[in-house]
């Protein structure tokens, strides 16, 4: 169990849990995508995170930043679609931000998170309210920072981020999409949760459960 820091082992545990969770939720994610997209988000992520876990499984002696970099490369190379470059870029930038540190503290993780989310923003150019995964990432990042600033630790900050992401996900239901495939539906996109926001919330919930 980590005590306020994140090691490579912790990260690998998170990734395994995440791959399992994605696998289990794949049907649900695909159904969400069927409603306002093209019915592939679950199988996309399932394929990607399976590949990522396989790619980094043996990297127990590699610093966390390199592991995340490898995850990012693998996701870019195996998911495709919109979510491949977005999640791939997230992990790549996270990894770069961590550099060679063998153990990441709460502040370091916050910086990595920020770098990753900025990567999502740079790639996807979504704004808040566009009904994308960014609507889960942005409040999560804010909540993480605010919790730390208010005296919280890694664990409480991760929990706050997960809760905010879940809220962000739920808030996408009523939105009309303005980015990605769902935007083609116009008003008809309202009434459904965004699949990417849903998977982002899942990712952050897994992080809270395994890294916190």
């Amino acid at each position, binding site marked *: 169990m980590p005590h306020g820091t994140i090691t490579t082992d912790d990260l690998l545990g998170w990734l395994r849990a995440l791959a399992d969770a994605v696998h289990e939720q794949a049907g649900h994610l*695909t159904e969400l995508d*069927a*409603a*306002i*997209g*093209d*019915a*592939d988000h*679950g*199988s*996309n992520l399932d*394929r990607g995170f399976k590949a990522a876990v396989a790619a980094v499984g043996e990297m127990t002696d590699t610093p966390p930043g390199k592991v995340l970099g490898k995850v990012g490369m693998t996701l*870019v*190379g*195996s*998911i*495709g*679609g*919109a*979510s*491949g*470059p*977005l999640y791939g870029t997230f992990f790549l930038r996270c990894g770069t931000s961590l550099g060679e540190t063998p153990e990441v503290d709460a502040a370091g993780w916050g910086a990595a998170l920020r770098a990753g989310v900025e990567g999502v923003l740079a*790639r*996807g150019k979504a704004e808040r309210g566009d009904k994308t995964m960014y609507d889960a990432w942005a409040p999560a990042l804010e909540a993480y920072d605010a919790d730390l600033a208010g005296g919280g630790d890694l664990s409480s900050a991760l929990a706050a981020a997960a809760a905010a992401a879940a809220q962000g996900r739920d808030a996408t239901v009523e939105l*009309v999409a*303005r*980015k*990605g*495939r769902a*935007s*083609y*539906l*116009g008003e*008809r996109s309202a009434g459904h949760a965004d699949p990417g926001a849903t998977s982002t919330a899942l990712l952050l919930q897994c992080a809270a459960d395994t890294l916190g």
Partner: protein
Amino acid sequence: MKKLINDPADVVADALKGMEAAHADLLRVSHEDRVIFRKDAPRQGKVGLVSGGGSGHEPLHGGFVGLGMLDAACAGEVFTSPVPDQIMAATRGVDGGAGVLHIVKNYTGDVMNFEMAAEMAAAESGTEVRAVVIDDDVAVQDSLYTAGRRGVGLTVLLEKIVGAAAEAGQSLDEVESLAKRVNEQGRSMGLALTSCTVPAAGKPTFDLPDDEVEIGVGIHGEPGRSREPMAPASELAARLVEPVLEDLPGDGPVIAFVNGMGGTPLIELYIVYREVARILEGAGVTIARSLVGNYITSLEMAGCSVTLLRADEAMLGLWDAPVHTPGLRWGR
């Protein structure tokens, strides 16, 4: 879900093996990269044309690899854009020293993956890569509030015309600007009578009652702009042609393309074509060339799309030029 497949996870890999077996005279397939190459790629001195996208739209894109059309096509998972590695492998494999044009349909995922590949290819090898992004679907508003118009039926016409230009030895600049001109001068719109079923999803993407039609549907089983009561072919054809005509720039003759979504029999496509021809005649638009059939599909979806391209003499000449691919062939 009932499909002539083995494992849903192997659909693309298995189909590529079938394409290779059926078209060994024309194609070479890199199974590792899931790229379909023209057999004699790279051709020295010729601009290389690379396209690709999610699978499930066959014959697009792999069926359009060959003389006078594409040099390579990257096959993504069903309805999922290919990844940058594939696109880089394709780009490398068609680089004959005259540069490479990426032909990209305007979807967030396709655009991102092709962009990443172009960045990486430039960094890696210095191959000059340009891109044209096709966005011909008038069902989608091209505004700040959408991801922009989608790339649909015009892709087929563009790959043919631009392919002929590259085959004729035009430069990267020329080929790129031609591609952009074709994109500017073409518009499409589609409708669906049924949904399709993504193999990995195992059930239809959407439900459509027996008395309704999805107007403005894309090519991924994504729901359209509106759901309307089912109507005779004459009315449905008008629902497609009118918005296309409204948005179509210029005047002069067109190439008229009635495309099947995969599950609609040819006899119905001819009925639709007849209505389209009638409407165009009424609107004083001359059809210079036509194409009717299943060329950019959405798995087994029933429905059709109409594409009109305002084609100048040069484009018509390139349209008529020989093409020899699995999906489109003439003059050879």
